[in-house]
């Protein structure tokens, strides 16, 4: 069902020590709002940062800043955003990284499938069309493995299942508010959705290298990532 009235859209930006890039991300999102019909509210979820992420976000004019008292991990922080979206009756929640690797001008592209009411969830993908993005070999292998795993379990083709640039409709917001994986949630939630009969689609977006700060992924974590996500996906498929 297409949305007739103006939908309420929340942009969730989870941030851990991103004082260097957060303000810029917020301003670029605000700039996008001026070009499209839809208002985008921005929510920064500070995941127990040790720097001035909160102040930077407030000064940049984020609609709301949630300051978690300690680090919950990406899943816990992201779910806080979805819980907020659910409590405040948003129609769509869009998640975007605080490090600047996602381009806010792609936001309308990611929102499009939801605005048409085509699917419940949309994923901004690096690989649907050829883009300038170059992932590390490790990440590439991970994405291919997860892609195959997702296909095996959900029978759906997702080329970039680890992408964190995605948007959810009301039904998915409600589901995420109730249940969301604690760590490395991106791949796992696709299976959760598929099991509940919720649909998703990929749209092509540009992605760049991080603007500032450091990625949280180290080699040991990558290994844990693969095992944990693999196990979680397989177990989800049996629920």
């Amino acid at each position, binding site marked *: 069902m297409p949305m007739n009235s103006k939908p309420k859209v929340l942009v969730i930006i989870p941030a851990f020590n991103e004082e260097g890039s957060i303000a810029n991300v917020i301003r670029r999102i605000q700039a996008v709002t001026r070009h499209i019909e839809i208002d985008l509210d921005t929510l920064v979820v500070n995941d127990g940062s040790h720097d001035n992420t909160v102040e930077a976000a407030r000064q940049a004019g984020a609609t709301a800043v949630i*300051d978690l008292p*300690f680090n919950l991990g990406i899943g816990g922080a992201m779910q806080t955003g979805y819980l907020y979206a659910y*409590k405040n009756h948003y129609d769509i929640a869009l998640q975007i990284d605080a490090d600047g690797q996602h381009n806010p001008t792609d936001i309308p592209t990611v929102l499009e499938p939801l605005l048409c009411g085509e699917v419940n969830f949309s994923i901004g993908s690096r690989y649907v069309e050829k883009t300038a993005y170059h992932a590390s070999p490790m990440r590439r292998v991970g994405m291919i493995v997860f892609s195959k795993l997702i296909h095996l379990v959900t029978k759906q083709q997702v080329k970039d299942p680890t992408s964190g640039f995605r948007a959810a409709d009301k039904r998915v917001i409600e589901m995420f508010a109730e249940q969301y994986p604690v760590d490395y949630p991106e791949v796992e939630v696709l299976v959760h959705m598929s099991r509940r009969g919720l649909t998703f689609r990929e749209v092509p977006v540009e992605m760049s290298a991080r603007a500032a700060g450091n990625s949280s992924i180290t080699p040991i974590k990558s290994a844990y990532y693969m095992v944990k996500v693999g196990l979680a996906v397989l177990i989800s498929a049996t629920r």
Partner: protein
Amino acid sequence: MHELNVIYIFSIVFSLTFVLFVLQMVRKRKLREQYSIMWILLAVVIVVVSLKSEWLDALADAVGIYYPPSLLFLIALLFCLAYLLHLTIVLSKLSDRVVKLTQELAIYQQQERDAGEQQPPQTEEERR
């Protein structure tokens, strides 16, 4: 058979000390009664096996274990495994609750802050 080995005396002394320590922890409210029951039961089992070592011998004989103490090790190991599993389940549940509470608290604080920011201008208007 009724001659007590040093190791059995040691187990009895150890078990009694262990029970006293557990009870003391409960008294100080550092350990919940529900968890203390498990540990006290364990100590009782050790004492019984130490006093009535022929029971252990008979049991070992029945299941075909030639060296009775190894049956004791087996039971102890299985008990520890089961209890550790139980603890990690409890821990998972606790972690989920902590996350949920933290999220609710942070959202609540954000709303309070928002309300606080909107409040002052209104009260100024009321004064006029």
